[in-house]
Structures are given as C-alpha cells and as structure tokens.
C-alpha cells in the first residue's frame, strides 16, 4: 500500500491589515516614512527660501500663531532650534517640559495635549521618551503634531536637516530633489543603531532620494533585523569597509540611558567603531563626518575628528533652524483634508 499523500498545504486567506489612519492632519510630521518625495522637495525648498528671507518680513509668516513645545526629555539642539524657527516666523511659542509642569503630578499625555489645545495651541512639537507617543497625541488632539524625537523610534526633522547637509556637500548644484538625486551616494550610519531614532529616520528618508545606507555596529547595538527596516539598507559590520564605500559618515552616541542592562565592553567598542583621525584619513579621506549630537568626545569619535576639516556637525545644527522653520510653516498652513 502506498503511504497516504501529504495533505496539500492549504491556501490561507487571513484577515487583511487595515490601512493606517495616520497622519490625521496633513501638517503633521510623525515619521520620515510619511514624507513623499514631493513633500521632501517642498520642505527643502521652503527651508532655503525662509532662511534667505529678510527676518523682518519672515516675521509675518505666522504672526501671533500659537505653537506649543512639549518636551518629556532634555534637549539642547532640537528644542532651541524649533523655538528659534517658530519665533523666526513670528509665532508665539510656549514650552512645557515634564519637569516643572503638571506632568510631574501625573497628568497624562492625552490631558496635557487637550490642555494645550484649549489654551490655543495650533500645533504641538513633541519630544517624548516613549516610542509612538506622537501618534497618541495626534489621535487625541487632532492637531498637527511635529515629532521632535520619540523614544527609540524616529526623529524626522533630524533626518531632514541631515539630508540638507548631505545635499549641500554632495549635490551643491541640485535645485529640486527627486528619487534619483542621491543615486550613487553611500551613507554609513555607525554606532548604537538599535536605540537610535536618528538612525531609523535617516534609514527611511535617505533611500527615498536614491541613497544607499550602510548601518554599522556590533550585533548588540545592531540586530540583523535592521536590514529589513526598508529598501536601500544594508548591514556592514566592518567599519573600515563601510568607510571605504561612503561619501558621508554619521556617527551615533551610545545611548547609555536606553541600554536596559546591556553590558558593553567600551574598549572593544572603540577599537571596532570609534572614528579616529587615522581611520578617516586611511579609509574615507574625503567623506563628510556627521553627528546628530550630543557628541561624546573620545568615545564614538575623537576630538580631532569632531573639530577637523571633514566635520560638518555644526552645519547640521545650523540647518536645523531652516528645516524646522519649513516644517512649522507646513504644520500651520496645511489644510486638513487637503494635501501638503
């Protein structure tokens, strides 16, 4: 007798995954993933326009409009540049930080958001230590929300200012960007990828314009699944090999506050992944060196590299104001139901 045939593998048709309702508001910037190439082009163009505009004229762009900054984590660059950006457009800003507010007394994110809305806030810029918090805030307030960094998830305005920096150096002649603008460009992001929202936003944004992103780090800080985060991303564990292929290298800080008990041998780490003058000269003598800050001199990069001629770290900071002017303007001018 013949053995019974194996039953045919059933064709399963499971329930579909519903489409995401986010972002609710076209002025919101929650994730770099939400940005079409057209939206990226628009933001970059507005950043340049607003940066070059006479401050006394620019001041009338959003005169007396109300923008709230809601910060659950400490921040120097992001907070200051968002504030300068909003003020530079003439908007009134108010800062609520988790310390010195009712958040300390247990007020929830939902209630804090609704309170800000009741006080007349027309957009909320949110920095939060928990991934996904901006989605909750947007769903509850239906206001335009700008994600100024959420947990380990995203920091889309950082990726936009990084893009602006990369374009200024590698594509100085380009006017409007398209899906091929960065074709042929390789950007290495090195260090603590796992805990980095800057990495995730750049991994989503840069391939949109044709760039190849190499992520580099030890497996504790860079799991294999990172390669599946989107198109145009590959893992290269050998830092020197990554440098040799790259026109831009973005160094990341080890996020001690998010290591959750993970033990790292820092000497080993530095041996493998610290960007030193020698390494840079040998493997990437013309690449630009980037860092979202805060930098820890002597850990992920040496002081010489941070201050050296290839470093564009302070240009990134400067670009932050221009980019944030563009996204704040977009937040307050996009029409719900319309397209931005």
């Amino acid at each position, binding site marked *: 007798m013949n053995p019974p045939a194996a039953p045919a593998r059933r064709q399963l048709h499971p329930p579909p995954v519903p489409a995401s309702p986010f972002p609710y508001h076209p002025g919101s910037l929650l994730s770099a993933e939400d940005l079409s190439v057209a939206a990226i082009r628009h933001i970059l163009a507005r950043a340049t326009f607003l940066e070059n505009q006479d401050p006394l004229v620019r001041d009338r762009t959003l005169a007396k409009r109300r923008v709230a900054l809601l910060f659950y984590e400490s921040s120097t660059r992001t907070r200051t540049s968002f504030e300068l950006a909003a003020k530079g457009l003439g908007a009134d800003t108010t800062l609520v930080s988790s310390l010195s507010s009712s958040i300390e007394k247990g007020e929830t994110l939902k209630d804090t958001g609704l309170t800000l809305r009741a006080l007349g806030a027309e957009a909320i810029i949110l920095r939060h230590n928990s991934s996904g918090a901006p989605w*909750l805030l947007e769903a509850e307030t239906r206001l335009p929300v700008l994600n100024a960094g959420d947990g380990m998830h995203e920091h889309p305005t950082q990726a936009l200012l990084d893009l602006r920096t990369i374009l200024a150096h590698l594509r100085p002649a380009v006017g409007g960007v398209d899906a091929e603008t960065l074709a042929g460009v390789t950007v290495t992001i090195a260090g603590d990828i796992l805990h980095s929202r800057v990495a995730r936003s750049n991994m989503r944004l840069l391939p949109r314009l044709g760039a190849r992103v190499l992520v580099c780090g030890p497996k504790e800080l860079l799991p294999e699944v990172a390669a599946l985060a989107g198109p145009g991303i590959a893992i290269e564990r050998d830092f020197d090999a990554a440098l040799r292929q790259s026109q831009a290298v973005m160094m990341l800080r080890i996020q001690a506050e998010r290591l959750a008990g993970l033990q790292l041998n820092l000497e080993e780490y530095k041996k493998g992944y610290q960007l030193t003058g020698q390494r840079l000269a040998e493997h990437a003598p013309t690449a630009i060196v980037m860092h979202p800050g805060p930098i820890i001199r002597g850990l992920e990069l040496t002081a010489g590299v941070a201050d050296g001629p290839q470093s564009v770290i302070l240009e990134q900071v400067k670009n932050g104001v221009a980019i944030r002017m563009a996204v704040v303007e977009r937040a307050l001018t996009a029409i719900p139901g319309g397209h931005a």
Partner: protein
Amino acid sequence: MTAIAIRGGHLIDPGAGVDGLKDLLLKDGRVAEIAGPGKLKLANGARVLDAAGLVVAPGLVDIHVHLREPGQGYKETIATGTAAAAAGGFTSVAAMPNTIPVNDSAEITRWMQAPERGAAIRVFPIGAATRGSKGEALNDFAALKSAGAVAVTDDGHPILKDNIMRETLSAAARLGLTVIQHAEDTRLTVGASMNAGPMAFRLGLRGMPTDAESGLVERDIRLVTELRDARVHLHVAHTSTAAALAAVRQARRSGLRVTCEVAPHHFLLTEEHVGMYNTNAKMNPPLRSAADRNAMIESILDGVVDAIATDHAPHAIHEKEVEFEFAPNGITGLETALGLSLRWLHKEWKMPLGRVLSLLSAQPAALLNLKGRGTLTVGSYGDVVIFDPKAEWIFRARDTKSKARNTPFDGWTMLGKVRWTISEGRIAYSGE
C-alpha cells in the same frame, strides 16, 4: 424553575456525536430529554423557544478569562464579565487568579463563586499555583480544590523556577488538577511590549522573542517527562508561537498529557496589526509574525490545538489611552470568540461546524474536567447556546456588555448571532 423546551433546532453536540434536527427539554437545570422534532412531551408551563433555522449547541466554555474581581472592579466585575460571556454564548468561564489580592486561598475562591457576585453564568475559579503568584512557595492545592478551584496557574506570570514547577506539577497531579502555564521566560522579555522582529525594530520597541515562550514550554515538557507520572497534566495557556506548538505536538506523540489553547487574536492577527502603536493590539503573549499566526491556524485545523480560549482581559478606557509601552496588556474576547471562529475557521478555512464548536465547548470542558459541561447528553447541565449560523453582523465595542472596550475587533464582521444563552436551565442572555 420553569422547564424550557427548545424546538425545531439543529442540535450539534460534538462530544456525543449528535448532529441533526432534535428538540431539547431542560428541567431543573439539567437536560431532561432529547427527542425527534415535535416529539417532546411538554409539561404544563414549559417555556418554548422556537429554534427553527438555528443551531442548538452545548453552552461555550472559556477556560481563560480575567474577571478582575476581587480588586479591580473598575475594569470589570464578575457580573459584567459574565454578562459579556453570556452574550457571547458562553455558559462556563474559568477565572484566572491574577486578581488583587491574588486568588491563592480557599476564601477568595469561594468569594468569587458566591451568589452575591451576580454571575450570569457559571464561574470556575482557577487557583494561584504559588503564594501571591510570586513563583516561590506552593499554595494549598487541596484547600483550593475543595473550595472549587478547577486548576492552578500563576497566569500573568510564569512559574519560572524548575523546582517550583516540578513541585507544582506533581502536587497538582496527586489531586487531579491541571497546571496551566503562562509560558514566558521573563528573563528574555524585560521592558518588551511587542513581538521581537523587524516590526519591533521599525517601531523602536523592545521585543519579546519567540523562544521566551517556546523555551519555557520545552522546559516544562522536560519536567513532565522526568516526573513519569501519568496523572500529570500540563496545559499551555495562550500559545502564540509555531515553536511552542511543535513542542506540544512532539510531547503528545511521546504520550504525555500536554495540551494547549489558542486565542482568536493569535490565529487571526499578526504584529502588523499593532499598526502605529494601537494599544488594543497589545497583549501578552504579543501578536506574532505571519508565520506564527499561520501555524496557529494549521494546528487548529489539524487537531493539535485542544481549545480556543479568549484570554478576555478587560481594562478601563483610560488605561489604554496612553503611550504604547505604558499600556497594560490584554484585550477583551468573550463576545467575539464565537463570531470570529465561525467567520474564519468555519466559513473561510472550512473547518466543520461541529469541530469549531467542540474547540469552544466539549474540549475545553474536558481539559479542566468540568463534568456535565460542554455536552448536552441527558443529565448534563442545561447549558445551551442557540445561534443563527447564517447571520453576519458587525461587532461594535460600544455595544459590549463588558465594562471594557479594549478590543482590536471593533467593526469586524462576525458570523453566527447568539439568540439565547441558557445557563443551568435559566436564560442568561436573550438576543434579538
């Protein structure tokens, strides 16, 4: 107590092998008579339910619910939770001990069953395996059992230590109690709020690896093997991974008494349903990959899975309206289990109706040795669900009988509308 005659219905009693047009008489809380259509001798005053076109089946049995009392009545009470159960066609639920305080005593076990709780259907408490469910010292299983506990577990937490789990298995076996394990190696899930994998990386959330579940199931099976005691019964709660199912399947082949349940959300949804941080898609074990979800479906269809259990876990609205990482685990499930099982297992994946109903009644009742439940043979409890097997309807969370609305199935199409749920001969729910 008024007798109830159910006439004209299609009786499906999978445990008894009945599948045809039969009339049913319930009297004194029990099944008094089963007869061919129109053949019942009706006593005076019997209430007659017209079940023409409807399925008449044993009341459903859910061996995994959280009713939140004592201690968290703001989430759910025994009264509201069992009202939801009755609306979902359930006549027996087994209540997990992770209450406040933890149900680790005969006193609390009895309190949960007291008439003052206002239960619409039968509640079978499950006792905590260890003191305070802390995994350190065993409770008095004999006392729990005599107070009515039908199994022991530390659900919500695993029994992690080898020696404690070994003692739990053998002490429970001596009393004929099932040990239900929440299989999660919590050393691997610190700070995690969803399944580990590409989706968790993309969302910037810490993930629970599948080995955290399967590793503990494998450890438990090893302990069962070593005990060499045929009375030992290990039941794996809310199985969510292909690897854990494979371990259960293998244990069964070796002749061990190892059983498992799967929740509707684990055979329907994947980690993709977390979407952009939907807290109503957050539970423990988490929604897994499509490969794991498909393994749940396959294992239900091929018979490895012993029961469908909801893991009904109600939470107050404000508790879920928070950042994803801060939201409590769990979703409700009592009112959607039948409708989803019929819509997907039966209609979509062609599982015979009797087998679906068996997974929701006869089999779970047998797992916890609930005598006279999950069947409608004469003399059994008068626990009956009567539903329209053809009716499609939309579940709306706002219409729930539960206090809670934390469900990912709001707006989903269900198949099979419950018309009556009868608990021990009394109508516990009556739909339109």
